[in-house]
């Protein structure tokens, strides 16, 4: 189950609904990503972030998230998955992304949650623009994110 939305999400609610949907899971892993207030950049030591704008490609975004959830289901014996990605204007310390995976055992739940996040970072059409006292700028993709996805040996 995937959602691309402007509004915030409630982790407690998402965990409970994942738990119900999964039936009889032995393990549930949840991950949430947040907007950092102090962001390290390669250009300067650090910047105080006043906000983040998240642009996306409507249509392709949903297709990509459906595809990654499907790939995770094919690789691991999962009972349920949940992906939420927010778009639009976000403030410091706000939640951006939620990934939840439920399985009979912990390894499948941990690994698939990491797989989904690694994929999201460099394969789903989202772009972050960071606002700070120096103005606003598009965040550059990181080599470490591209390397993280390689270890999963994706088809595309």
């Amino acid at each position, binding site marked *: 189950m995937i959602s691309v939305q402007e509004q915030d999400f409630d982790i407690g609610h998402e965990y409970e609904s994942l738990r119900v949907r999964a039936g009889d899971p032995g393990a549930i892993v949840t991950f949430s990503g947040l907007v950092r207030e102090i962001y390290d950049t390669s250009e300067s030591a650090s910047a105080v972030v006043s906000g983040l704008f998240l*642009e*996306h*490609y409507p249509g392709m975004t949903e297709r990509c998230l459906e595809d990654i959830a499907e790939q995770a289901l094919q690789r691991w014996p999962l009972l349920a998955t949940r992906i939420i990605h927010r778009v639009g204007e976000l403030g410091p310390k706000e939640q951006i992304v939620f990934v939840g995976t439920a399985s009979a055992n912990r390894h499948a739940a941990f690994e698939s949650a990491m797989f989904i996040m690694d994929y999201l*970072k460099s394969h789903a059409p989202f*772009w972050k623009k960071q606002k700070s006292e120096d103005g606003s700028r598009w965040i*550059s993709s990181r080599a470490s994110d591209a390397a993280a996805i390689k270890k999963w040996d994706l088809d595309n």
Partner: protein
Amino acid sequence: MKLDIHYFASVRERLGVEGQQLELAGSASVAELIALLTRAEPKFSVMIEATPSILVAVNQTVVGRSYILADDDEVAFFPPMTGG
């Protein structure tokens, strides 16, 4: 051949437009479309220069430069993704 072109993030900002409709005589690959737009539009040329790692999606799937475009394709240009 008619193409529906979309631009996102820094690419959209550099061009100052969200997209455009393009009518091409005959077929073209993604590389040929980029070459054509680079020749025809100074802003596109500057944008390509500044975005060496630009990605291209056709009908919402990322494709390589040798991909052959078809009539009514939705083509999108954007920088590497930075979600999560």
